[in-house]
């Protein structure tokens, strides 16, 4: 109640007091406020931008910043090449894709300007949405594609790519990882980082990856995995269960998502089982590398 008073004098309610109560034809609702339609998307983006920021902060706090090292190492294993068609799936806010492009620039600085720029999308803020499989499958319009099921995360990623000056080099696609809108054999490298755990059918995701990869293409997955050392696993479990949901509540106002996180990590297949799953989708030379004693792992397989 105390806080309702404080927040009642914030700029949003001032705005609604100033505006009239009737909805004109080019205004819409943003919560209780009346806003011009073109403002609504900006406001929605602001809300999700702050949500994405607090989730990023949670990543840093939960892993003590180590997630950055994992992702950097992951990209070094990928070894970007300017001729490749690259897709990062479930990569909404662009963490992996930006690292990919920056690593590319580091090793091939002159290539940065010779990479064909992606076609401009239809409107500046519109990301391509794959509606159904009946629609013709498409080809990528850029050498770096980011796909995610969540449009808000994509919007945040787009904004960040503009801030990082990488906007023209990325194609953003809103799609389900189990049914990608791309034709067969379009990509040289497919990555999915901390995303496959959240998909309903992991095997379908891996099969789709197989389908859209060219012959000789590589599948790479960075994901939480099982800690093998018994003593370490005990401390890791205690730490996860005790600290992560409350910190999630305080920082991100989201106990449930972080409770789900620690449970889904334990339910996800162990390193060897996941490798078997990848092999069962016809990938070859499948192996994995543990990071931080198995807290996460990088799985890799080739389509040959």
């Amino acid at each position: 109640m105390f806080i309702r008073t404080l927040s009642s004098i914030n700029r949003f309610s001032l705005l609604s007091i100033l505006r009239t109560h009737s909805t004109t034809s080019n205004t819409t609702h943003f919560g209780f406020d009346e806003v011009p339609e073109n403002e609504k998307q900006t406001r929605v983006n602001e809300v999700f931008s702050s949500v994405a920021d607090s989730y990023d902060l949670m990543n840093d706090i939960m892993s003590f910043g180590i997630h950055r090292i994992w992702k950097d190492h992951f990209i070094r294993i990928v070894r970007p090449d300017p001729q490749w068609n690259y897709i990062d799936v479930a990569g909404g806010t662009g963490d992996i894709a930006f690292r990919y492009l920056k690593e590319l620039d580091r090793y091939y600085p002159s290539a940065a300007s010779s990479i064909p720029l992606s076609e401009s999308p239809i409107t500046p803020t519109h990301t391509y949405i794959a509606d159904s499989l009946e629609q013709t499958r498409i080809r990528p319009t850029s050498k770096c594609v980011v796909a995610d099921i969540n449009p808000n995360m994509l919007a945040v990623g787009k904004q960040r790519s503009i801030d990082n000056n990488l906007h023209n080099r990325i194609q953003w696609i809103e799609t389900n990882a189990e049914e990608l809108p791309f034709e067969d054999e379009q990509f040289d490298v497919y990555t999915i980082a901390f995303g496959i755990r959240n998909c309903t059918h992991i095997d379908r995701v891996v099969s789709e990856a197989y389908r859209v990869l060219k012959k000789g293409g590589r599948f790479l997955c960075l994901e939480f995995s099982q800690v093998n050392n018994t003593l370490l696993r005990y401390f890791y479990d205690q730490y996860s269960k005790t600290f992560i949901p409350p910190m999630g509540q305080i920082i991100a106002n989201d106990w449930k998502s972080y409770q789900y996180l620690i449970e889904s990590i334990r339910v996800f297949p162990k390193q060897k089982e996941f490798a078997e799953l990848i092999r069962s989708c016809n990938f070859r030379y499948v192996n994995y590398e543990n990071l931080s004693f198995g807290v996460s792992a990088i799985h890799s397989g080739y389509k040959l």
Partner: protein
Amino acid sequence: MDRLYGTHKPTGLVQKSILAVGSGIMSIADPSRDDMISIFGETTGGLALKYMQEKMVIDPEGDRILKERPIINSKTVDLEYLKTLPIGTLGKTYSNFLVKYNLTPDARRPVSFIDDSELAYIMRRYREIHDLTHVTLGMPINMLGEVTVKWFEGIQYGLPMCVLGAFFGPLRLGPKHTAKYLHLTLPWIVRTARQSRSFMNVYFEKHWHKSLNEFRRELNILEPPPKI
């Protein structure tokens, strides 16, 4: 620990401490996080809730509330009926209050971090009667009104969140309100809180039809100071 009620999230001592400290800091650092205020209240209110429970059990109306566990939300309270009541009754005044400030009785956060079913209900009841407390005391939603209600709740219930709000809230008052607060409002509310019946023992839903003045007399509430 098993879940004892629908919105229960069982927590250990370490987790409660993290929540208490973290929510305390966040409430001040980011006042727009109203969830932090409620969590601070839940994690620090253990002792006060037991005190409130004792006071409710020995009062006949309070005991009835504990047994029946009435809930105030837009489904259980017939807002249309309240609108039809004569002016000056508790129900009509409450209805006008909700309309004037564009409030709904559904806006209260559910209780999650209290590990006893009855204490969790008491916390929930406390949150749900907050608006009715405003109406019965005749306090508006501005800063002064909120601080006044916090004083009342702090004295009657002993919840640390109310006490802290009551002490630190007035720091944000402007000069005119501060003067009124110090000379008129504060002495009145302290006296009222100590003299009147505990609001947790009041089955508000049975008194909609009563005239507000009569209701206040029954509860032993003194005449509020005049508006500025």
